[in-house]
């Protein structure tokens, strides 16, 4: 028996003027799987993530998360419905320390952000929750560093930690390895690997070593259309993919 998909995209379309960014796209992400989305630059990968996330509105089609129709919901509503996201360019709170980032995420998770009296950054409960968030990506020992002074790879880790903070059922990772050095990329791969089975992940990544190691399934996107989908083994043998992605046309 097939389990119900966590994410179910049905016939999504999105164009900007004459430019078709998403073309009749359907895709599912099953519970606990890592589903990688690959394709050349400009294929519409980030545009697709933006539609799932709610920052862009599809022209037509539907988006279901755990069977619930997300179409029409705002970004914060979708987050509360169970989506977590890391961005292509590090999107963390630069003017705060690592721990403070965690505390702000923790109080948001608890729904306590609208309280006016007690100081937040010295609250023992929040510090405890934030520490747990940071511990998952191994940043606890750098908790008191300002984010501005953090190495690039650590910022990517923090970004992932914040995306995970609210225990989402679907994690959207937009090029988590981008700009990371080899060691950092390795660390990130291991951390994502460790998440397998605990949360469904939709991953955009250019580092093919990482994709081949992480992905349970792959979807190849070219000019907004799915040109192939399947397991790593299937895709790496696929001629169409090779010509479209590598561009070995004759």
């Amino acid at each position: 028996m097939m389990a119900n998909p966590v994410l179910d995209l049905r016939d999504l379309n999105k164009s900007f003027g004459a430019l078709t960014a998403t073309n009749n796209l359907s895709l599912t992400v099953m519970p606990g799987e890592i589903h990688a989305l690959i394709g050349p630059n400009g294929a519409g990968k980030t545009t697709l993530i933006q539609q799932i996330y709610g920052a862009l509105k599809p022209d037509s089609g539907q988006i279901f998360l755990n069977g619930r129709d997300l179409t029409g919901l705002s970004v914060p509503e979708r987050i509360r419905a169970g989506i977590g996201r890391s961005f292509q360019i590090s999107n963390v709170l630069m003017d705060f320390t690592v721990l403070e980032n965690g505390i702000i995420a923790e109080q948001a998770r608890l729904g306590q952000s609208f309280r006016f009296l007690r100081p937040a950054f010295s609250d023992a409960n929040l510090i405890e929750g934030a520490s747990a968030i940071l511990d998952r990506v191994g940043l606890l020992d750098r908790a008191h560093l300002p984010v501005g002074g953090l190495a690039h790879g650590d910022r990517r880790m923090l970004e992932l930690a914040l995306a995970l903070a609210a225990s989402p059922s679907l994690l959207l990772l937009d090029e988590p390895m981008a700009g990371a050095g080899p060691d950092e990329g390795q660390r990130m791969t291991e951390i994502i690997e460790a998440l397998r089975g605990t949360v469904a992940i939709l991953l955009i990544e250019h580092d093919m070593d990482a994709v081949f190691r992480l992905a349970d399934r792959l979807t190849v996107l070219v000019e907004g259309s799915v040109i192939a989908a399947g397991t790593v083994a299937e895709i790496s043998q696929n001629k169409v993919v090779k010509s479209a992605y590598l561009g070995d046309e004759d």
Partner: protein
Amino acid sequence: MLHLHDIESGYGAGQVLFGVSLSVPAGHVVSLMGRNGMGKTTTIRTIMGQLPLTAGRISRFGNAQPDQLPFQIARLGIGLVPEGRQIFSNLDVTENLKTFYRPPHDDGGSHWHYERVLDLFPRLAERRDHAGNHLSGGEQQMLAIGRALMTNPKLLILDEATEGLAPIIRTQIWDCLAALKAEGQSILIIDKNVKAIARLADHHYILNKGRVVWNGDSEALLATEGLTARYLGV
């Protein structure tokens, strides 16, 4: 035409290029290859003066004066076809072309002007009154190439000019570049399409993590075992 000597560059504190050297001789087509994030576009942006050079030297047409502004560099004779095309969405096709016309530097080379660009890309002639944001991806790419040609560049730089396009459009672009080469146009090109670029370019550089890890001619590129898989493959 263009010589880079051990250049270093990057964004703010993050260094991307760690000593890149390459040359584009007159009349040659040179390629720059590598996976995403290896520093190809950063190299182009540094050549154009859009990113500061932190070490090394760039000589453009024998002019090695540092700290030139992008518009001065463009006027030396570099025509840029940028990544993502960057068409002016609020200008129509004609304006996207005519606004940037500059006469050729010397009478030796060919002279590009509005009519000639439209001859090269008949699709653009059909859509000359359309605004930039009402063009398809392929048309935008043609417009970006035409726009760079309108500056009558001594060196044309193309950053991923075939990325994300339908195969038939790509073939058109490659044919067009081959025609330009036949006219003696110097070109520096970034692309991922190994076979097509091996046919077009005379010399190739492969970038990995901000360094040139290999360079050689097309024969060597195709002959070297495992090169494409290691640095360029999926």
